[in-house]
């Protein structure tokens, strides 16, 4: 049962170990510190790839499991394991963090502290994606907030404290709601393990026992179940984010140093979606079904409103911030589409597979694309002395053609151009969701439209048009930057042309998840 080598534990704590080393010995040589941080994050990537190769794609169940008794009094075990979903999350985190580190190369103040916080954040994310017992899952979930807060506040822009505090407060409130819900479940079932709870839910025993133990005479049983669900839902809705819980995001992304924004958008936002998939769907399936329609409305609102809001922004980071909300909205659409009751209808079930596969792909692709886009913004900032407004530039393709070309690829990927990685995820989501939630999917197309407009707008205003005389000396990409960017751009093409790379690994998990849904 337990994996022979505790790969997941090693992977989880490797970046944290690196952080401690940086804190203890960093400080004198900044370049050495930065390089060490990069090395550690790349080591994590290598380990993840090793896991990838040893992963058995045919099986949809948990692999590399480790389970040890920890606090018997609270039914807490140290239980970790990954299936296709977890592996995907690990992969995207391992890709995003090195990008974030590279984008932060020019940070000068308190260098060892910055990179240790980044590595600690990576450990927390690894921990969240591999934990299977609420206790240590919650530990990692909460602990991750702290490095994020400090990264935003200490190295951020002029209003960073306010943004960081808002980020923290929103997420904390959500986490507390989450904690209370799980406490309620624990009090009723004496279990904290996700797998056990999912099994209980599948057998239809979970909610009855919760209602039994916790019912207050003023609430009907359905209400009790919904209240418990609402708590957990809130915790994740804030993180993704889902409109209307998203208001913390634009400021946080804008005020954070761009390297941190990459981490926030690439990896931390996926924690919310992971929560939906790992926790809400298996454990609270029936409750989610009840609120299916409102959820779909919120998903549509998320997609459409954020896309149009992005249109109105003048700050590039805010544009991409809203665009992130929009892209993740598609994932939410796909997830909520799964809630339609299909019974054993094989055609509709196949659509569900498609939708969920699309969600997985979109998570990975958005991570890569968004990270790359913000990386480019960081490069723009460095070259322009801090400017990143939409109208600050113009005609850059004349002086920096390679830059234009590569950023253009990233932008088109974000747009969803076929052949690049951004297309296939969105396509699958739309294809799968349409039969399941026709009107919601149709309305979401509006979001696609707005996205097209603002992406083309960026291309036009930043790169095309007459050259702004200020930027005559705008340097193009250096050799180092080109070498660093090459694998990422290459990945965009590879995933765009051959999505089977990913789908082959996650498909079994997807099918098993849909089958366990029970509706």
């Amino acid at each position, binding site marked *: 049962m337990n994996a022979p080598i505790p790969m997941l534990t090693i992977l989880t704590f490797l970046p944290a170990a690196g952080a401690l080393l940086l804190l203890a010995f960093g400080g004198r040589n900044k370049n050495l510190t930065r390089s060490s941080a990069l090395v550690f994050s790349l080591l994590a990537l290598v380990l993840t790839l090793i896991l990838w190769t040893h992963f058995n794609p045919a099986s949809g169940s948990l692999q590399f499991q480790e389970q040890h008794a920890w606090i018997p*009094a609270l039914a807490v075990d140290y239980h970790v394991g990954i299936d296709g979903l977890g592996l995907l999350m690990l992969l995207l985190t391992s890709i995003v963090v090195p990008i974030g580190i590279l984008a932060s190369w020019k940070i000068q103040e308190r260098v060892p502290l910055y990179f240790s916080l980044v590595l600690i954040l990576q450990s927390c994310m690894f921990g969240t994606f591999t934990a299977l017992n609420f206790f240590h899952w919650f*530990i990692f979930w909460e602990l991750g907030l702290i490095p994020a807060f400090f990264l935003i506040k200490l190295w951020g822009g002029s209003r960073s404290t306010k943004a960081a505090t808002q980020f923290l407060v929103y997420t904390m409130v959500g986490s507390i709601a989450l904690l209370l819900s799980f406490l309620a479940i624990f009090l009723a079932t004496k279990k904290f393990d996700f797998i056990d709870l999912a099994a209980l839910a599948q057998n239809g025993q979970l909610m009855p026992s919760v209602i039994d133990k916790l019912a207050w005479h003023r609430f009907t049983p359905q209400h009790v179940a919904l209240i418990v669900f609402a708590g957990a839902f809130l915790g994740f809705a804030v993180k993704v984010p889902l409109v209307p819980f998203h208001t913390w995001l634009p400021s946080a992304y804008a005020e954070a140093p761009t390297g941190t924004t990459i981490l926030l958008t690439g990896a931390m936002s996926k924690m919310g979606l992971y929560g939906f998939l790992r926790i809400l769907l298996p454990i609270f399936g029936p409750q989610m079904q009840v609120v299916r329609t409102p959820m779909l409305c919120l998903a549509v609102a998320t997609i459409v409103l954020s896309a149009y809001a992005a249109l109105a922004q003048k700050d590039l980071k805010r544009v991409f911030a809203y665009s992130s909300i929009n892209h993740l909205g598609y994932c939410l659409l796909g997830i909520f589409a799964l809630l339609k009751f299909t019974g054993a209808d094989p055609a509709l079930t196949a659509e569900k597979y498609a939708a969920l596969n699309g969600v997985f792909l979109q998570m990975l692709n958005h991570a890569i694309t968004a990270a790359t886009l913000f990386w480019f913004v960081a490069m723009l900032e460095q070259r322009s002395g801090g400017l990143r407004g939409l109208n600050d530039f113009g005609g850059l393709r004349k002086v920096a053609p390679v830059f234009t070309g590569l950023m253009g690829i990233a932008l088109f990927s974000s747009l969803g151009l076929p052949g690049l990685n951004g297309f296939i995820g969105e396509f699958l989501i739309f294809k799968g969701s349409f039969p399941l939630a026709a009107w919601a999917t149709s309305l979401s197309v509006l979001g696609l439209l707005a996205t097209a407009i603002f992406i083309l707008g960026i291309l036009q205003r930043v790169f095309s048009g007459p050259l702004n005389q200020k930027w005559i000396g705008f340097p193009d990409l250096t050799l180092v930057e080109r070498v660093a960017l090459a694998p990422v751009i290459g990945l965009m093409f590879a995933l765009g042309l051959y999505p089977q790379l990913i789908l082959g690994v996650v498909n079994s998990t997807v099918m098993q998840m849909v089958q366990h849904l029970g509706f």
Partner: protein
Amino acid sequence: MLAWTIYISFLGAAGLLLLPKGSTIAARILALLTAVAGFAIALAAFIQHRSGELFTITRIPWVASLGIEYRLAADGISLTLVLLTGIIAITGILFSWNIQERTKEFFAFYLLLIGAVYGVFLSYDLFLLFVFYEIVIIPKYFLIAIWGSTRREYGAMKLAIYSFAGSAMVLVGLIAAYVEAGARTTSLSDLAQYPFSPHFQMAAFPLVFVGFAILAGMWPFHTWAPTGHVAAPTAASMLLAGVVMKLGAYGCLRVAMTLFPLGLGPWGAHHLGFGSWRDVFAVLAVIGIVYGASVALVQKDFKFVIGYSSVSHMGFILLGLMTLNQIGLSGAVLQMYSHGILAGLLFAVVGRMVYNRTHTREFAALGPMNLSKAVPFAAVTFVIAGMAAMGLPGFSGFVAELMIVIGVWRSYPLLAIFVGIGIVVGVVYVWRAMQKAFFAERRTESAPPHEPLPPISFPERLGAIILIAASVMVGIYPQVLLNVIVPALNSPLFAGLRQGSWQ
């Protein structure tokens, strides 16, 4: 062997007094060695008696005609608290490394206090427990009155009088119980088994419980705590908030609740919405949690924030005691350990790392000093300590508070909501203090340049690391303590409690 924790501390205190005048360094080293020796003995005993069962250390007749014995014994709860005392003793001395005035007297009083505290936790005879409990008061007074800061003489006297008043109440209850049981014995186990009449227990329980709870800072008898802790020098605050307040909670559990378990039972009629003393004290504890946190939120003085936070955290312990179920009680004992460590850490940062250097504790003055750059180690330590105090998972406070909340939910579901509110306010005030003290916004106009603050010395770093490690270790693996606490709660001593309203 474990009794030597007491004797070594007293011997150390005596030895310190015999040192020649002006031997500051020798005094520090002797004090540290004594504390380390005490801790080592405690740790050895902990490892040896991992089952958590009661074991007798010493038992000799003392005043035979009155049935008083010199009886020392320990179970899991005692061992946990003795460990806590050892850790705080060592770190307190490390954080007092810089005391220059009357150094050997300082450490002599300190070791005297430590020895008496060990004595309370190891006593199994009520008279002996009370003797050690009272001995604590005098060194406490002098530590604050001589080496303290703000309003130290007033704070010290208030603290001493409140503590003495509490122990006076306990004394009356004690003598009454002794006489009622035939004036034959003061042994804890014998008196616990004696069938006091329910009427007697109904009256004796609140008397003795409140007497101990005064020292534990129960609302509304808590007012000595913020004043006293703020006035005290760092090591004394660490010891007072960290350990001495736990003496009160320990007394509540070990004496009041075991001797008079029927006192917790229902009155039969409801007065003001309360149905038993248990209800009353549970509500008072919750008020303490919320009140302490709320008042901490509006303080302008950094140390007062920590002082009031101690009142709030002690409320958790008292509430856990009133849940009368195993998880709540174990949570309460675990919180005794956890808050002991964390209070020590918080006072160490505020008192030694910040106040000793900046000579001010007002947020308005600390903000412009840009402390996160000036003393980064202090900033990091306070962030970690603050997170732990908030109850962030991974630290000892989370597990303890989780267990208490679960226990409260089982016994008083309505109160659990207020506890939640208290936790949330707790997060906010820690955050506020951290922001204002270390990470305040820099004004646009340049502040006048300050002289650089002295760097954090090695003893301070060592002390901080020890305390953080002590909290993290239990946070990650709470079984290490729960393995001894839970069997202790199931021992015959608490049989009366279990038969009562145990759930």
